[in-house]
Every structure is written in structure tokens, then in C-alpha cells.
């Protein structure tokens, strides 16, 4: 199973996680793990998701999420997990 990492960075506000999670649920993307911290008022979130059952193609839902980031005044990035595994695991 190829997993995808979603990161959200930006100014903290109400409902960021809710908006992202709602989008994922509507698109049949399953959340496997969420970690989140606030560093000096800035919201840092990482989600590990399984998008294999998504009806939309990867590049479409990835771009829609990144656009949602603009609305939330956050930077959203959607990346396959391999780049992180390769870099940080031998």
C-alpha cells in the first residue's frame, strides 16, 4: 500500500483539521495517523493517509487540498511517503 503524507503549516485557526478531514472523508481517503503541534502560534500538522480508494486521481486531490490551504491561509503539501522513508531510514 502506497501511503501519502499531508502536511499543513500556517497560522492556527478554528477548524483546520475539520476542513481537511471532511475533504478526505468525502473523497474516500483514509486517515491512518495524525500528529500535530503548535510552535509559537503556528500550526504544524502531519497526516499519513491511504488514498488508494480515492476516486479522483492523485494529482487532482493533491491539488484540491493544496488549494484548500490557500483558503485556510495555510501551506498544504501532499507527497508520497517514500521521499521521507528513503531519506530518514536505511
Amino acid at each position, binding site marked *: 500500500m502506497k501511503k501519502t*503524507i499531508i*502536511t499543513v503549516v500556517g497560522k492556527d485557526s478554528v477548524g483546520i483539521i475539520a476542513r481537511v478531514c471532511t475533504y478526505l472523508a468525502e473523497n474516500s481517503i483514509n486517515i491512518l*495517523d495524525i500528529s500535530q503541534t503548535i510552535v509559537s502560534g503556528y500550526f504544524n500538522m*502531519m497526516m499519513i493517509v491511504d488514498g488508494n480508494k480515492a476516486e479522483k486521481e*492523485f494529482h487532482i486531490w*493533491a491539488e484540491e487540498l493544496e488549494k484548500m490551504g490557500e483558503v485556510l491561509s495555510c501551506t498544504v503539501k501532499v*507527497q508520497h511517503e*517514500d*521521499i521521507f522513508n528513503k531519506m*530518514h531510514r536505511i
Partner: protein
Amino acid sequence: MINIGEVFETNKMIEQENLDVRTITLGISLLDCADGDLEKVNEKIYDKITTVAKDLLKVGQEIEREYGIPIVNKRISVTPISIVGACACHSPEDFITIAKTLDKAAKAVGVNFIGGYSALVPKGMTKSDKNLILSIPRALAETERVCSSVNVGSTKAGINMDAVRLLGDIILDAAELTKEKDSLGCAKLVVFCNAPDDNPFMAGAFHGVTESDAVVNVGVSGPGVVKTALEEVRGADFGALCETVKKTAFKITRVGQLVAQEASKRLNIPFGIIDLSLAPTPAIGDSIAEIFEVMGLERAGAPGTTAALALLNDQVKKGGVMASSYVGGLSGAFIPVSEDQGMIDAVKEGALTLEKLEAMTCVCSVGLDMIAIPGDTKASSIAGLIADEMAIGMVNQKTTAVRVIPVIGKTVGDTAEFGGLLGYAPIMPVNPFGCGDFVNRGGRIPAPIHSFKN
């Protein structure tokens, strides 16, 4: 499972420290395009490149999208054209038709450079090699994306001084024909000693005759990432310094390896090598010179620079080798002047001279790279510069290269503008004393004694 700290570390490298994959270079053999009929050769070359490389751009963009890592360049290298065209080309003009075909094919598949307008002449030149070399100035002036290289020396064969002398003139001619663009033609011509067959970096990339039909080579980058990592160990001893470079090089190279494997799988073309490189760009923070400064040198070129570069080069290789299954190409730290803001500043302030750069090439990955010199430099002096650099490569069994740009109409104190990744460069003075009687002797310099290893 991967944790949040690791994810943000990677993304910080990409977003703030200019981590990228510098190039996916698709090597394509054109040996099967040889023919006695020049028109057919051109047709076969165009068809082969546009068939094999048709998905290169698309695949590169897909990988960028999925992994969130920029892949700055998608390029092609081909079999040295002096070999491919040997049967059909009887004059420099004939070779120029092939240069134009390569340019057209590069545009058709959307790559920004195509390398391999090359000749390998360390021991001697065939008629075809000589015609190709004579055609280089026009080929570079009349095409946009074609890159050329000539290998004039090797540890095994010695240095072909006839070719070295000839290239002094060729470089000046290339400069003259592109004088409207600050002699940009010379930025697309590299003279090599011990040129590797699998180098993915332009302008010196070509697809060696020892390679298979097609192969994917990847060049990594990341001076900014190394610099940021070294900022954490300011004042620590050399052991800690080396460990930090090594660990960072490992991480950078792993990304290159991932991209190479994905590209290879999606293009259905075998993976060749990763070039373990620190390739600077004119962007602030993406500089080898700035790494020296973090190491403790006031400016690149200060006493200690050669030692700093030697350890940097070695640690990049040590970290990178473990991160990749196959390594090759040039591998190490590049020190191009015009492509590195810190180097440019060092030259402007008088910290870095041509002679110091020459010393640095003994321990860097390539050689005198992207150095602008006065347009009135004598051809024999350029040949002398090349001879010196080739001697360093031959004796030290390493790749060395010369890519100097005599900027016509400009002199010391002026600046040459090349644009884009090629950057800009202050014109550097060349030693004014002559070497004509030396380089005009003709013949070749024999291989050094330690090349007889059999």
C-alpha cells in the same frame, strides 16, 4: 513509521535550503543511427531521440508532483557525434546538419540541453574528430540547446597537445560567433581529461560507447542543505564537521536514488548511476563558497580553501556512496564561478584568483568551470590553461575540465551575463606572459609512469 520531525526536516530542505534533483539525464546510444547517407543519419537520429525520450518530460513532472521534490532539468546525452557521423560527414558543414537535428529533437521532446556533440581524442584525432571539432563554433552559435565536449587527455593515453592547441582557437572562434550574447557559445563547450561515459551534467554530458542502448542517470544537488547543517556545528572539530557533511550527503543522495529508480521504472529504461554532486546555482544560499565560509574561511580563495574543498568533496562521496546502488559521473563538489553567488563575490573582492581555482581543481569534482576571461586572451594562452588543467587530471587520475569564456569586447572589471542557471561572472585576469612556443610544439604528452598498472 515516519514522524513529524522527519517530515518537516525534509520539507525544510526543499523549501528553504534549495534541495532539488538537479537533472534527470537520459543517455541514448546513437550508434545504430550511423549510415553512409547524411540525410538518413539525421532522420534516424531525430526519430530515435524523439521515440526514446518522448515521455521524459512528462515522467519528470509526475515525479516532481508526487514526491514534492523539484527536478530542475530534464536532459539528454547521446553517443559522441564524431563517431555517429564518421561515415556520413566529410566536412565541418556536414556535422553542423547533425547539430541542428539534435537541437530540433531536443525542442521536440522539451529538454533544455542535449549533450554529446563530442569527440574523444586523448591519443589522436581521426578525420571525423577533426571535422567535428572544427564545426563546434558554428554548431554552438547556430543551435540553442546543443552542448559540446572534447576529451583531449587521459591518464592512460596522455594529452593530445595538437587537440589542445586547436581548441584554443576553437574556443576563441566560438566566443566570436556568439559575441552578441557575451560569448555564450563557450559556456556550452567543455574540454576534458578523463571524461566519464555516464556524466549527467551539462555541458559535458555524453553517452559513452561502453553504455547500453538507453540509460537513466541522475545528478543530485544541495549545497544549501550542507551549509545549513554545518551551521549547527560551528566551532566543532574536523571529525564533527566531516560527519555532518557525510550524513547530509547521504540524505540528499537518497532522494536522487528514489527519483532515479522511479524514472527508470516509469520510462522502462535501466537506471545507470547517481552523480553524487553538490551543484551550486546563482540563488542565495545555494553556494559552495558559502559552505567554505561556514567552515571558517572568510571568503572562498582564502588560505585553507583547497583543504576545505578536499574534505567536502571526500565526505560528499563517502555519504553518497552508501545511499545509492551505483554511483558515477563526476561526483563531488562543483566550483563553477558564474553559477555560484559566493564565488562571484569572492572574485569581485579579490579573494579568489584563477591560479587558486586551478589549485582547487586538484581536489574538486571537475575543473576550471564557467570562468569568464578577457576577450583578447590569446588562443595559445587558452591552450596553455587547458594543458595545465589536463595535466592535473592525467597525473591525479581524476576528471578535470576547462570551460572558460573569453568574452569578446570585455575585459577585467567588466561582467558577463549568461542568464538563467549559467548566471553571470566578473571577468578574471589571465597571466599575461606567453606560452606560445610551448603549446605550438605539437604532438602529445606521454601518459605518466603510474598509468602502467598492468
